[in-house]
């Protein structure tokens, strides 16, 4: 993050995208993407399939040509530089290991292209194998490795050339859940140690939030928001980001300024708007107390309040999920089970309250 700030001060990141666009006929797969990534930063491109995240990555790698815009690394314009001169290490979703070469051969390939001396190549291949804990498997062919091992080889192959930027295209999507968690930690660990500037393409919000310094949320070819995981979660810039990252209640309503009337009750949001809107609040931000009694006003700012009735209650280990009927709508509420409080039963009258600061409001197309 320190790198990001110093780069921001210079006006441009280590990797800088300006107005990057890819059109296929009339369809814009990536539309006017501009962002800056600092040296050593790990940034996720997050979005649903077809949002343009992989297309963006492939443009950065030079594997597809941009229709418009500019790509620069460390001030050098790479927009029209061929892939083989871009000096970017890429890990493909399918790993794309050379099946006819040994593991060591795969790692040596990029170094041979750089015409390094034999001894230097051997030394760096050994280092890279050690980095991903595959010292003993240098002579194996990729087909003789497990999925996780192939993944490590792909990562080592991309890193051994000491690229200016490391590009990861859904690298974990072909692994089973357990292995994915391990590899997440391992990739993050290696990335931090090598201070490798990295872009990580994923459709998995958990991956993006837990591994990355910053996350670029994309939708329909456009950048919705670029921010830290906390930014996205606590200060979503759009309805799409609010609903795509984490779970959230959506309440359709009509706003007059920062006030929304809902079944006779007035709710307030952190900003103001006029016309049709969606109010959003995260389930775990809602406090719930039994009975109609108003809870004591908390000291952390003004709160919204709604009275309702428990419709459903589901035990989920660390959390108790509730669906509460309030103002003619069903709201999700989560409560921690840490306190051993007996769960509220369906039919019980409750009062919901949450901070105005936690109430997002987004315009809705009428």
């Amino acid at each position, binding site marked *: 993050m320190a790198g990001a700030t110093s780069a921001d001060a210079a006006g441009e990141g280590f990797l800088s995208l300006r107005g990057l666009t890819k059109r296929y006929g009339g369809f814009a797969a990536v539309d006017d993407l501009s962002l800056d990534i600092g040296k050593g930063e790990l940034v996720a491109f997050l979005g649903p399939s077809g949002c343009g995240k992989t297309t963006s990555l492939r443009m950065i*790698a030079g*594997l597809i040509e941009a229709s418009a815009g500019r790509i620069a690394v460390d001030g050098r314009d790479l927009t029209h530089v061929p892939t*083989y001169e871009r000096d970017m290490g890429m890990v*493909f979703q399918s790993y794309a290991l050379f099946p006819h070469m040994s593991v060591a051969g795969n790692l040596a390939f*990029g170094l041979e292209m750089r015409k390094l001396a034999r001894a230097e190549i051997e030394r760096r291949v050994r280092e890279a194998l050690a980095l991903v804990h595959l010292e003993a498997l240098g002579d194996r062919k990729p087909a003789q490795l497990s999925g996780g091992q192939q993944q490590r080889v792909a990562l080592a192959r991309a890193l051994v050339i000491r690229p200016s930027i490391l590009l990861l295209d859904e690298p974990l999507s072909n692994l089973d859940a357990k292995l994915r968690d391990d590899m997440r930690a391992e990739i993050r660990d290696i990335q931090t140690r090598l201070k490798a500037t990295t872009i990580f393409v994923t459709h998995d919000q958990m991956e993006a939030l837990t591994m990355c310094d910053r996350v670029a949320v994309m939708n329909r070819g456009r950048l919705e928001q670029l921010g830290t995981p906390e930014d996205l979660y606590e200060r979503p810039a759009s309805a799409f980001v609010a609903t795509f990252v984490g779970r959230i209640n959506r309440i359709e309503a009509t706003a007059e300024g920062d006030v929304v009337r809902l079944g006779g009750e007035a709710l307030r949001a952190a900003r103001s708007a006029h016309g049709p809107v969606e109010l959003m609040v995260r389930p775990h931000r809602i406090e719930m107390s039994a009975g109609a009694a108003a809870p004591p006003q908390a000291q952390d700012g003004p709160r919204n309040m709604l009275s309702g009735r428990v419709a459903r209650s589901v035990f989920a280990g660390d959390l108790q999920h509730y669906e509460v009927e309030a103002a003619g709508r069903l709201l999700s509420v989560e409560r921690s089970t840490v306190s051993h409080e007996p769960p509220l039963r369906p039919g019980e009258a409750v009062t919901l309250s949450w901070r105005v600061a936690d109430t997002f409001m987004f315009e809705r197309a009428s």
Partner: protein
Amino acid sequence: MSAGAPGARGPMLAVALLIPIFAVNALVFFWPTFNLFKMSFIRGEATGALTDETTLANWTGLFRDSFYSELLVSSVTISLVITALTLVLSYPIALYLHRARGLRRTVLLVLVISPLLTSAVVRTYGWIAILSDGGLVNSLLKALGLPAQRLIFNTQGVVLGLAEILMPYMILALLAGFGRLDARLEEAAATLGARPRQAFWRVVLPLSLPGVMLGCLLCFVLAVSSFITPKLLGGGRVFLLATEIYDQAIVTLNWPLAATLSMVVLIVFGLALALYARAARL
């Protein structure tokens, strides 16, 4: 006999399913081949009549008469040249087809296969129309004021004609063998700093070798055994094993010698197949 076949029914079913193809092969391939083998040890008379006497003369004659060893060498050499030319002409087309998608691929594939819908005889006559002294190429040369070239009724004509006729087979075999050739691998090579040419030599070509070997085996076998095209385009000046077998069997009526030469061709095939099996394992 697949690993997934449940219970004892699997192997039995597999054997049952193999019986028809085995029967057909036994009837129309193994039995006639065995008869040819037997015939190569029978003495024939000048009239073409077969006697009951067995002899090694057909075989020893092959070794004594240098015409036959030269025939063997030139047949194998010309077939290798044809195979190499067919490979060079077909490889780029096959690679392009392998990468093409959708309608383009379908249309191009049909175009590649369409020559097979015409008989090789017709296509051979087409080459005569193009390459003969008064043909298309020489008319063009004449119009440009260049000296006419002898393009046909020699080895060159046979090589050119057969290479074109064998191209569809080569392309299909190459495509069948390109299975491991994934566009992502070339992209990976590029990200690692490989120029297109380096990526071709280090990644594309090695991975396409199974297809190359398959195509070469197929075309070599077809080239060695073809006789109509060499006969027509060779103009009686190009002598090959297959044309000689045809002449001995149909013109001279020396069936025992034709049978012996057929066995020689079969041995050549066997060697080619052994070589392929060895190379394919590497």
